[in-house]
């Protein structure tokens, strides 16, 4: 694949997957996935468990490698041995199901750590930005709390702020509300909705169908490592054509 870095414009897809294949041993997890995501789009990936949703978004920021096909982020091939991984990770933020905050650091330190240590930015400026981000995820006053002292929803919002501190162009959300109780799910979803409204490109793996319908510009339904069906939420939820999609929707809606 020829390098197209530097020639990428916003008219082209910001994330582009072409026939992506991945297997763990003999188990084929991704079986030829192709999708294009434009800048500012909010995309939800839904599907039964084990359908390769999480693996798919892990491949986008090179946490997992692929065996075939190509993934391009802003025109740059992700699975390239010569790839500058730091440059890629500056562009892509990721939030996990289990929050994965650093338990030995306070909320503020968690947010500040990567910009200071990885990007070598000025500590004073980073702190100012980190405090703003914490305010943005509605956690004022929790700056000096340790993750163990915060609820699941609060931890997840710190995790979002931590990813945003790297000023990414794209955010990946891997079932970020799956480990939360129903009441705190909402506070995290509101945060994501705010982000989407600001024009952040978001790729979400989610089981929150109502939320997907509300915020997504485009919905992909995956099963057994392939995209079975995709479309804008109105047509997807009301007018699904594939029987597999209809069956899944009838079970979760």
């Amino acid at each position, binding site marked *: 694949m020829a390098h197209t870095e530097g020639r990428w414009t916003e008219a082209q897809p910001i994330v582009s997957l072409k026939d992506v294949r991945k297997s763990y041993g003999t188990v084929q997890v991704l079986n030829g996935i192709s999708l294009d995501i434009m800048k500012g789009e909010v995309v939800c990936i839904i599907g039964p468990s084990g359908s390769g949703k999480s693996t798919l978004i892990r491949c986008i920021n090179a*946490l997992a490698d692929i065996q075939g096909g190509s993934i391009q982020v802003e025109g740059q091939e992700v699975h390239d041995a010569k790839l500058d991984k*730091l440059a890629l*990770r500056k562009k*892509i933020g990721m939030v*996990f199901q289990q929050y*994965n905050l*650093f338990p030995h650091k306070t909320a503020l330190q968690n947010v500040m750590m990567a910009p200071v240590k*990885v990007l070598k930015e000025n500590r004073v400026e980073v702190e100012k930005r980190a405090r703003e981000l914490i305010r943005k995820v509605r956690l004022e006053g929790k700056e000096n709390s340790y993750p163990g002292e915060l609820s699941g929803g609060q931890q997840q919002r710190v*995790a979002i702020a*931590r990813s945003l501190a790297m000023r990414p162009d794209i955010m990946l959300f891997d079932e970020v509300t799956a480990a939360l109780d129903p009441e705190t799910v909402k506070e995290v979803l509101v945060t994501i909705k705010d982000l989407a409204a600001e024009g952040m490109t978001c790729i979400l793996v989610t089981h929150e169908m109502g939320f997907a319908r509300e915020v997504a510009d485009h919905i992909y339904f995956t099963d057994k490592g392939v995209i079975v069906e995709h479309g804008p939420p109105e047509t997807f939820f009301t007018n699904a054509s594939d029987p597999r999609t209809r069956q899944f929707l009838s079970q979760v809606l």
Partner: protein
Amino acid sequence: MWLPPIPEPARNPALRRPGHMDVLLPRRAYAASALNWRETLLNPVSMTLLFAGLTASLIGAAWAQDAASAQPSVFSVLLKWTPLLGEGFAYNVLISLLSMLIGTVLGVMLGILQVSPLMPVRKFAWLVTQFFRNSPWLVLLFYSILLIPFQVTAFGITVPFPGWLKAVIGLSLPVMAYMSEYVRGAILSVPTGQWESAESLGFTRGQTMRMVILPQTVKRILPNWMNLYAVLTMATPLVSIIGVDDIMGYTRSALSAEGRPDILIPMYLYVLSWFFAYCYPISLVTSWLERRYSVKL
């Protein structure tokens, strides 16, 4: 801990109030009201009192003996040699501290290598760890005495290696191996999500290890580390076998100078109490730390 027993509920069914259930009473209070002899005897306060009492009675007996016989009492002999034994014990402490320092630094590095992504490095570190962990400490001491030259000359600078330094190196090898295992275990016990989130934030593997993983392992390693130090201190008398000055060597000199067989057993008991007084507080702090951190995580 003793708690006053809670009054028994009325046994007579006629006197029972509806809704009153025996099972809801705190049973623990009854069990705790019986005094546990282990807790009563074997706690730090009573142990200290016991030793103070023993020492006091020894002093008393010694005075009585001093007054009664022409020969100096056991106690006054022990007191006479105390400065020398103290000096010897200082060597033991010095050797244990230096071995611990070297062993810890090397052990942490070896432990990190044990989880290296490079297979040959991992295997090599594993082999070194297992080799030194499964070797008798005394044999390692003999080896370090025999293999390390008495001085090393490099670039015109001569570094002498006296016996005690060789002993320090010999003892630091098993410490290194144990430490390596503790570090490896602690690193593997940190959830993989920590690695993933650090990686997605752009941290390199080295940065992740240094800033994210290792700080989280300290809590888990600390009790083991202190326990290892106590064990190491108790192993330091081994150096007397290879002719390095320590409390054991000085004790032997003192005994031969006195030439009194009746001193033999009290003297070695005295040496034991030096080690006990040094190591017991460490084990107390260790178990306190273990209790403190076993709840969290």
